[in-house]
């Protein structure tokens, strides 16, 4: 074993706690800009309350939201770095330790396949019974071994959509369909402002993996032309913070476009993150 097991577990656990309890500076700045931009007093108050909640959670290292989310792990691997099965096990153990520390909401369903679907298997009382989603691994040019932990809540999972779009050889067709889907999703989400995460790929798996990557590399201070267009168009809906009207329905859009196939169809994965997402942090091992 070419790594220190205890060190990896401790680092991943700390990363999960930070993911579940803190706003990065670029997100805090985005909230401050949104507060300054809102004209409706109620919308301004909602945004201020969300930001104040983040300050208290960071100070206490306690959950931002009672739905602490499902842990998703994304690993960047540089040219001379090595990922072994033992390292992945240590990362999973770090996730479990992080869930104990946060604490994560005990929401793992027990039982066989049928029992886990209809919940007849019962709910585990333990925070650390919650398994992480399958780990995504990506090779990168930088010679690092970096672990990102993302905590994905249930509300955005209800409203997220992975579905094809017939693009008609026109980018506007794709963007407008994304806007339509996002408007419907944010209206029902309840915990806006959202950070829209979008992946465009050749299959459902690829589109979703790209959507995860869009979150991992998200920066609220940077928006491409396409991302800004989607943000602006959805904000015209006036859904606003908590769905109670206002100018800030979308705080930012994060879009990752992967390789595409010669075809009239694009597969688009879209997740309307809640007001705390992307809930994530990273660490170098």
């Amino acid at each position, binding site marked *: 074993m070419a790594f220190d097991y205890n060190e990896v577990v401790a680092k991943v656990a700390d990363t999960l706690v930070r993911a579940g309890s803190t706003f990065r500076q670029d997100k805090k700045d985005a909230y401050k800009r949104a507060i300054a931009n809102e004209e409706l007093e109620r919308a301004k108050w909602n945004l201020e309350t969300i930001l104040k909640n983040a300050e208290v959670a960071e100070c206490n290292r*306690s959950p931002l939201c009672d739905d602490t989310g499902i842990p998703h792990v994304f690993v960047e691997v540089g040219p001379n770095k090595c990922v072994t099965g033992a390292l992945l096990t240590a990362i999973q153990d770090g996730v479990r330790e992080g869930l104990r520390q946060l604490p994560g909401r005990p929401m793992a369903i027990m039982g066989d396949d049928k029992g886990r679907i209809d919940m007849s298997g019962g709910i585990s009382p333990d925070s650390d019974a919650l398994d992480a989603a399958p780990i995504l691994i990506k090779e990168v040019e930088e010679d690092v071994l970096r672990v990102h932990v993302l905590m994905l809540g249930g509300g955005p999972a209800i409203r997220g959509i992975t579905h094809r779009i017939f693009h008609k050889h026109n980018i506007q067709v794709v963007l407008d369909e994304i806007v339509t889907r996002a408007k419907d999703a944010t209206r029902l989400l309840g915990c806006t402002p959202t950070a829209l995460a979008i992946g465009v790929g050749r299959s459902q798996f690829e589109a979703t993996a790209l959507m995860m990557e869009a979150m991992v590399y998200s920066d609220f201070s940077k928006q491409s032309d396409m991302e800004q267009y989607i943000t602006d168009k959805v904000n015209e809906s006036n859904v606003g913070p908590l769905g109670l009207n206002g100018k800030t329905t979308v705080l930012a859009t994060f879009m990752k476009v992967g390789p595409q196939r010669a075809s009239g169809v694009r597969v688009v994965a879209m997740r309307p993150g809640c007001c705390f997402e992307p809930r994530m942090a990273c660490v170098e091992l």
Partner: protein
Amino acid sequence: MEFRTITAPFTDEVLKSLKVGEIVNVSGKIYAARDAVLPKMVKMIEDGTLAENGIDLQGGVIFHTAVSPAGVGPTSSNKLEIEGTMPEMTKAGIRMHLGKGELKKETIEMFKEYGAVYAVIAPVTALLNSKVISKKCVAHPELGMEACYELIVDKFPCIIAAAHGESMF
């Protein structure tokens, strides 16, 4: 900003005074219940077994939340088992449904018939934790975080999103 505080369970007079868009602080005894337990509570209403568990819904509040070591915070009120049980819960006495997300027009119309309201609360768990004075499981403990809890709360900040047949959606 300072907002008025209303204490649950509510009188008809208090409910009539609430305005759509108004921010209020909710204090007092409220019930926490969500997807799994709400249909079971409807069954308890039908069986007449609520009182055996010390549950009194008259003028009461149902907060759509789990109760766990992570804290409390609203789940989506427009989920099937939550919005779908609102008619029975309202008919049985609940006068404030507290959660998040847009509700159907027919649900809001139904509230008007009973003088009930829908309030939205931000999912600000870190802030809400200091406002929960006590919590007690009162029904279906086997459901863990999805059981029904009685909470005593102090000044939960809420926005009246639907009342008297009007809504913000």
